[in-house]
């Protein structure tokens, strides 16, 4: 092992140093670091409430918003970097509220209605793209993810969203935790469960949209789920599980983006594969040492 890591470590540092000399790679890394914080923090509340599927749904719906943003951009003849992002944010937030309203009405997170919303959103996106033609290159990075295509303004927005989301979670942590562990008891304790449920799904929409250009529509939900699942295997408390999930996600994004630079592979795919690898390691460790051991 020692013989293997000795030559690898300087190689890794050399690759990182070279990579960080390029502004587009710097932006990619900052964007990746933001995703590595945002996704597992919100994912921790979603996964343990069995709402993991909502991330996937919101990503596919947000895709319609991206397509609408690109469509408007082509109509206006501008090159506004944030128009697709703004479109995605509006559409995903509206969808999040609609999904929560449906679940409040039917008293259950309905996977059939979510599947309809998911495929419907993606279908609207594909129709808009075909109507406006010539958008295939722009839309590709949103479907498959491309951290190196993240613009300067987008990075600023991501950093701002990260700070905002963390602040909101810090203030509402007790409420979100209570509802995650025991929603009915939280209602009896007269915590405003409905308002916090809406807040959580809207935060999920914000995170999905922020992470979409890095991870792509198809893989963005993985960052909400996989690091949280890995942390859940070995964490000894809920608070520690959030910290651990962020560490797993950061490890995955930094190594995934580095691998994409050194080996010319898709960054989003590499990030998710590293995260899954870490999940397997966590699951093996749990088998050996027991829960939270």
């Amino acid at each position, binding site marked *: 092992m020692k013989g293997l890591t000795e030559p690898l470590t300087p190689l890794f540092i050399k690759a990182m140093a070279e990579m960080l000399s390029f502004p587009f790679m710097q932006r990619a890394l900052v964007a990746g670091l933001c995703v590595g914080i945002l996704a597992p923090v919100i994912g921790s509340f979603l996964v343990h409430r069995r709402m993991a599927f909502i991330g996937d749904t919101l990503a596919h719906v947000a895709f319609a918003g991206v397509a609408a943003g690109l469509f408007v951009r082509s109509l206006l003849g501008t090159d506004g970097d944030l128009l697709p992002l703004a479109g995605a944010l509006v559409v995903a937030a509206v969808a999040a509220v609609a999904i929560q309203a449906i679940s409040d009405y039917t008293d259950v997170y309905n996977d059939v209605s979510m599947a309809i919303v998911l495929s419907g959103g993606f279908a609207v996106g594909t129709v808009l793209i075909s109507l406006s033609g010539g958008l295939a290159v722009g839309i590709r990075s949103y479907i498959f993810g491309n951290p190196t295509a993240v613009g300067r303004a987008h990075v600023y927005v991501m950093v701002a969203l990260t700070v905002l989301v963390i602040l909101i979670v810090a203030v509402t942590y007790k409420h979100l935790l209570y509802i995650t562990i025991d929603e009915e008891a939280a*209602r009896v304790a007269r915590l405003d469960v409905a308002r916090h449920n809406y807040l959580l799904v809207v935060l999920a929409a914000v995170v999905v949209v922020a992470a979409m250009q890095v991870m792509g529509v198809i893989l963005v939900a993985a960052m909400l789920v996989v690091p949280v699942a890995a942390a859940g295997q070995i*964490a000894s408390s809920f608070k520690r599980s959030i910290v651990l999930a962020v560490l797993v996600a950061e490890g995955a994004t930094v190594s995934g983006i580095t691998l994409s630079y050194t080996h010319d592979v898709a960054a989003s795919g590499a990030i998710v594969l590293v995260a899954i690898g870490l999940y397997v390691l966590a699951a093996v460790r749990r088998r050996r040492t027991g*829960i939270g051991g």
Partner: protein
Amino acid sequence: MSVIDVENVSFGYTDTSVLEDVSLVVDEGEFLGLVGPNGSGKSTLLRLMLGLLRPDTGSVRLFGEHAREFADGRRIGYVGQGVARADRGIPVTVEEVVRLGRFPHAGYGRLREEDYQIVRDVMERTGIDQLADRRLQALSGGQRQRTFIARALACEAELLALDEPTVGVDAESRDTFYDLLGQLNEDGITILLIEHDLGVVTSHATAIACVDRHLHYHGDPSGFTDGNAIVDAYGAAQRVIEHDH
């Protein structure tokens, strides 16, 4: 003074009613055992009493206010159905669960030293102080149940509402649990308990309410075991097995 006042309440999730014209008063300091066959509407009645559901007709008052509008969550401790069963794998410790009981007191603010002290005290009282850092998932049914009872106590509530909390709990833990409920009741806490084991509940509660869509009986436990309410609600095959403790 009445803690809960249910007046002519009817309720149905669909067109079929689950409860019909139920009237019931729970007085301060009472230990009410709420019993009835499976699907009799006792959990629904409890949820109506706590303001989680709105009655179709009639009214429910909680501490003198309309139950749906009652806003002071600090006055109610609640342990829901099946808490002693295996949890969903949430990586949460015993102490984290017990601390939830202090959240209605803290609101959006931080917990204070006084809150942490109360959490430590109730964990000691329920015998789970040694388990504080253990993950809930790694505990036995009885230990998990005590954790949720401790959460309800940490709330320093005047009313403790428990919905079949002993499902999945071994006999010894159940005895300890009932001793604890007895002590809490002696301390003045009003207790509202749904329990499927008639023998256990009739030997501990100070009053029994038996529902099966209608209220079949409301009165002291001896009247319930001696009278016809059991046959009315459960059918002739049911009998009460007295527990010697």
